[in-house]
Each structure stands twice: as structure tokens, then as C-alpha cells.
């Protein structure tokens, strides 16, 4: 059963000190209801049957595991790619939207809202809403609307309304603010499908559980293909949902190194980056306590990355806890290295990765210390790069 759920970690919504439910009072009953409905669904056979059916017949799971021999040779490691790019809509995001929309139906909520950065979560939400005939409104920062125009059109084709958000840095953080404002005003009829392992409880644990199918499949596929677990599992981190999804099945395999790769943008020293874990400090944004890019007065700083999906000043609270506890390790990779890896995987493997994913690939290509002889590395190939082709072409033209 693809959606079988393991006993839940952090059922109280706290990961060490992180997480929690720091939201306006108006939202508390809705979060309590969501937590209850989710708890009931977790143990409901009919819910899992419905979810499994959609994951198999609509999303196209299980996604394959592909060995990247030529890329691996260049990186000096045996590299395996978990192909979330082959899911319907082209990224891991749909694993979560399918689960949440099933919960919204159980709550009788027929209006769905979402925030989106690169547009992948917006497309995944619009897609499942189209399938179930639900109203869908997607909030997207105006800067992202400009750099991800193709995904805006996709969402509109799917019947969603895309609201361009002009406030603040006009990226994912501001889209999330605006989605929360919408939800506060329409909470009785509306479910907010948060796209990552961020936000108030129960979102971080619920989104993790819906994404955990990635790691469950990948762990079994690695064992089947190689007879062994990988030495390391590597994933990119914005909010961190593809990373939590693939890490989850390996958390108890303590010999497996879990590596998250944040966006260093133009470099950590430039201040123009999105490395919340690498250069932030604990704070509260969007309903939970977690590492955050902020100034000395507690004002949230703007994040920067060439990749719209990583361009976020916060990170999921479970990652903060995995970092503090030392179970996972977090590094960062800048725009230029990500662009190089984007091109390299395309040329060497015939797979065009999302710019987000390219950050994880860049780290595999140049790890903090070189891979030991014969190291086996599993990478979450979280999405495909069609949406990024225009941007990459523009950058190539500008530097040519």
C-alpha cells in the first residue's frame, strides 16, 4: 500500500522546541478540526484506499529509481535518482495536494486556496481541484508570476484563479501571508493547502506524512536494486517538503547520512540567499517556530535565490530539529553552481531537473568532503525543469 502511514512522530506538533501553532485566534478552531480529521483519516482504511488509488492511477506512483551513471562518474559516486519529476504535474508537490484535498472533502470544504513559489505547488493544487470540481485560488508573488509565467498559464488552464501578490518581496513569503489573510476571512468554507512542511501544526507533520511515500518507495527500491541502503540521501530545501518526504523513511537508519541543501543565492556572505538553517536563527513566521532569516529587531529578511521554490526565509520546523539534534546535515549551494548542475544533468543523463533540484545535484557534484570510493548516494529528483528553461536561456544569453 503506497500510502501506508507509520506511527506518527511529533503528534503534539512539536519537534524539540520547534513547530507549534502561532496563528491568529480566528484560525485555531480550523486547525483543531484539521488535526482531528487528519487523525481519523490516518487510521481509516477507506481513506488510504482512496489515496492509494489516486497515487497509483492519477499521479503515476510508484515513481522510478534511475541510476545516473554518467553524472555519477563526474561526481565520483554511485548516484541514484528518485524520479519525482515523473509524477503527474512534474514534481513531488502533488503527493501532498492529493492527500489534503481528500481531507478537505471530508471536512465539507469546497473552496481551496494555496500559496506557490515556483508554481509547482499551485499547479498540483489546481490539478487535483479540477479533478474534484473544487474552486481553487492560488496566491503567487508578483516576482514569481514574472519568472514562472508558464506555470501561471498552466494553473489558469486548470481552472484556478491566480492572485499576483504585490506586497513585500513579492515572492513565496508574501504569497503565504496573503493566503493566510484569505483563510482568516473565509475559514469556515475554505481549506488552505499549504505546500510544504511549514506553517502551524498539524501542517508540518501532515505534509511530511503525505510526502513520506517518496522515501518509503525509494528505500525499498534501493534495497531491491543494490541490496543495501545508500550512504547518503540528498535533497534540496526551501520549506523542505521533498527533503522530509525522502528523509522520513531513513531517519531510523542512523548509518545513512541525511543531507539537505539550501539555496546560497549569490553567496552567504552577500546576504542575498535563502539559507535559513545555515545563516538564520530561531523565530516565528507563518505559524511555527523554526530557523528564520531575520534582523536584530526580529523583522523577517528577504530571501534570495534564482530558484523561486527555494526563495523563502523560513524552513520546516522538523528540519530545525534534525539540524540541532545532528541527525541531518545542512549545506548550501549558490545560483551559479545550481545552474551548472542543471546543465550537467541535462547533458549527461537526458533529464532536465528543476532549478530547485539542481541545488541538491550541485552538492552531490561538489560535496563538503569528496565521496569515499564507491559511495552510493540517493538524490531526490524533486521536479522537472521545463518551467525553468526560459529563465536559464535568459541567463545564458546574458552571460554569453
Amino acid at each position, binding site marked *: 500500500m503506497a500510502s501506508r502511514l507509520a506511527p506518527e512522530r511529533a503528534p503534539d506538533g512539536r519537534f524539540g522546541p520547534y513547530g507549534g501553532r*502561532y496563528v491568529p485566534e480566528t484560525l*485555531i478552531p*480550523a486547525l483543531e478540526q484539521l488535526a482531528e480529521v487528519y487523525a481519523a483519516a490516518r487510521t481509516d482504511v477507506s481513506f488510504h484506499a482512496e489515496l492509494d488509488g489516486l497515487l497509483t492511477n492519477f499521479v503515476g506512483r510508484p515513481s522510478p529509481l534511475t541510476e545516473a551513471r554518467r553524472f555519477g562518474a563526474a561526481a565520483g559516486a554511485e548516484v541514484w535518482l528518485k524520479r519525482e519529476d515523473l509524477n503527474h504535474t512534474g514534481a513531488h508537490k502533488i503527493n501532498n495536494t492529493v492527500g489534503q484535498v481528500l481531507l478537505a472533502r471530508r471536512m465539507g470544504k469546497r473552496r481551496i486556496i494555496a500559496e506557490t513559489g515556483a508554481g509547482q505547488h499551485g499547479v498540483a493544487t489546481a490539478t487535483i481541484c479540477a479533478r474534484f470540481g473544487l474552486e481553487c485560488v492560488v496566491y503567487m508573488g508578483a516576482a514569481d508570476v514574472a519568472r514562472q509565467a508558464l506555470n501561471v498559464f498552466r494553473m489558469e488552464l486548470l481552472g484556478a484563479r491566480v492572485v499576483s501578490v504585490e506586497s513585500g518581496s513579492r515572492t513565496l513569503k508574501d504569497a503565504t501571508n496573503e493566503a493566510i489573510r484569505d483563510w482568516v476571512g473565509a475559514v469556515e468554507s475554505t481549506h488552505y493547502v499549504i505546500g510544504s512542511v511549514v506553517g502551524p501544526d498539524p501542517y508540518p507533520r501532515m505534509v511530511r506524512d503525505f510526502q513520506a511515500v517518496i522515501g518509503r518507495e525509494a528505500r525499498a527500491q534501493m534495497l531491491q536494486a543494490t541490496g543495501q541502503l545508500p550512504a547518503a540521501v540528498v535533497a534540496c530545501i526551501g520549506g523542505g517538503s521533498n527533503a522530509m518526504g525522502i528523509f522520513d523513511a531513513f531517519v531510523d537508519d542512523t548509518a545513512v547520512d541525511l543531507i539537505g541543501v539550501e539555496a546560497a543565492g549569490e553567496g552567504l556572505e552577500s546576504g542575498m540567499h535563502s539559507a535559513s538553517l545555515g545563516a538564520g536563527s530561531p523565530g*516565528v513566521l507563518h505559524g511555527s517556530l523554526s530557523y528564520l532569516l*531575520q534582523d536584530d529587531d526580529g*523583522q*523577517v529578511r528577504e530571501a534570495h535565490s534564482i530558484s523561486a521554490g527555494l526563495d523563502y526565509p523560513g524552513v520546516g520546523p522538523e528540519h530545525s530539529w534534525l539540524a540541532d539534534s545532528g541527525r541531518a546535515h545542512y549545506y548550501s549551494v549558490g545560483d551559479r553552481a545550481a545552474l551548472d548542475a542543471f546543465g550537467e544533468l541535462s547533458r549527461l543523463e537526458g533529464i532536465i531537473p528543476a532549478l530547485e533540484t539542481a541545488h541538491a545535484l550541485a552538492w552531490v557534484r561538489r560535496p563538503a568532503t569528496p565521496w569515499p570510493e564507491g559511495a552510493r548516494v540517493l538524490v531526490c529528483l524533486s521536479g522537472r525543469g521545463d518551467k525553468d528553461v526560459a529563465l536559464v536561456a535568459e541567463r545564458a544569453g546574458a552571460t554569453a
Partner: protein
Amino acid sequence: MALSPAITSSDVGLRGAFAGPAPALVAYLTAGHPDRTASLEALRVAARWADVIEVGVPFSDPLADGPVIQRASRQALEGGMTVPGVLELVAEADVSRPLVLFSYLNPLLRYGLPRLMDDAAAAGVAGLLVTDLPAGSDSALEAGIAAGPLTRIPLVAPTTSVERMRAVSKLGGGFVYLISRLGVTGARARLPGDLSATVARVREATALPVAVGFGISTPEQARAAGQLADGVVVGSALVSALDAGGVAGLEELLMQLRDGLEAVL
């Protein structure tokens, strides 16, 4: 949930503001908006006409606020306003009305909550309202607030059950801030039709005075809300008046609101 807070002088002062014959006027202003000088003057003008003043601490991501207060917060931050700056402003304003610090959690966390409460009390602040710290969400922080010198203002919404209203009210004092409607701050054309029933539910839960806020912008709305509750909170409309007509414009609206509330008698 945490222990009930002790009755303090700030609590008595806040409650006293609701003891007059007419419903109390609670005025919200964003500290540092439109700039420090005008903000200082605005606080003093507000103290002439309002019974309680809510001083908004500007935050980069005010997710419970509509466009007017979003813009005011951004302007205040661009002008260099900070948490220490808000406390200095309040101390310098030295107004005779009870003050409530109205803030999102993160700037307070960064400053240090225990230190913040001591410094705010020293600056003359009586109450504390943290928009994104709902009752029961963080027992350690909440116990710290209960033990500090400021009165925590309980906040309830139309979605809050009577049972929860009861628990929320016990965690604070002064008065209960009732959010009149679903949604963010900002002017609306009319009061919600179910406001009377919502106020009745709050009264069932607590004996504290009830102030109604969110969406109240005109003297007529203030009068109508004042017929149901013990006080009304006006925020975005005052911020807009300050934007459009300066401190004189602010005072004009405060006087009209005051007239509206006196008409309840």
C-alpha cells in the same frame, strides 16, 4: 493552560477605562507611522479622546492585518522604527490613558519577552496583546507573560467556542478584545449581522468588559457596536485619517467617534 495571572494595577487601570457611562473608545495607532514625530503627536492627541490606546509594534509580515495597517507598518519600519524605538516613543509620549502594546510575536521574542515586559511597564505600558500567540499555544511563554508586570489582553474571535472563550479570558485581564468578524483588519461597509449573538457568547464566558474591533470605522458603526459592547476598537480608520489629514485629521475622526459613542447614553 497556564495559571491565572494575579490582579495588578495595570489590570485595574485597564478595567477602569471601561467604567464610564459611555462605551469606551480604544484607539489603535502604528508606532512610528507616518514618521516618529507625527506618531508621537498622534499618541498624545489620541489620549485626549480615547480611553485606551493600542500601540502597534510594526512587523515585516503582519498577516492579520489588511492593506492600511500593512502599509503603515512598512512605512514605520522604513523610518527606522524598532521595538526599543517603540518603547522610547511611548515613554516620551507620557500619556495619561492606559496603553496596550499590540504586536506580533517575533519582534518581542527577539527582544526577549521578560525584558520586554519590564521595559514596557517602565515606559508606562499597561497591557500586552500578541496577535499570533493564541491562548494555550506556548505554556512556557504564556506563564512568563502571566508572571510579568503587563496585563495580557484576551483575544477571542467569532470562531472561538464559549468554552474556549472562558479559558482564554482566564489567562488575561483588563478587557476582552472581540474580533467582530472573520478576516483581517480594515474598514468594512457594515457591522456583521451576528455581532449581537457573538457579544452575548463572550458575556456568557467572562465578566470582563468587552471591546469589539475589526471593521469599525465610522461614528455610526461605533455607536451601533457600542450599544452591544463595553467599548469599540478603531484602528485602520484612524491610521487612514492620519495618512490623509495628518494629526488634525486624526483628531477630527477621534472627536466624531467620541460623539458617536456618547450618543449611546
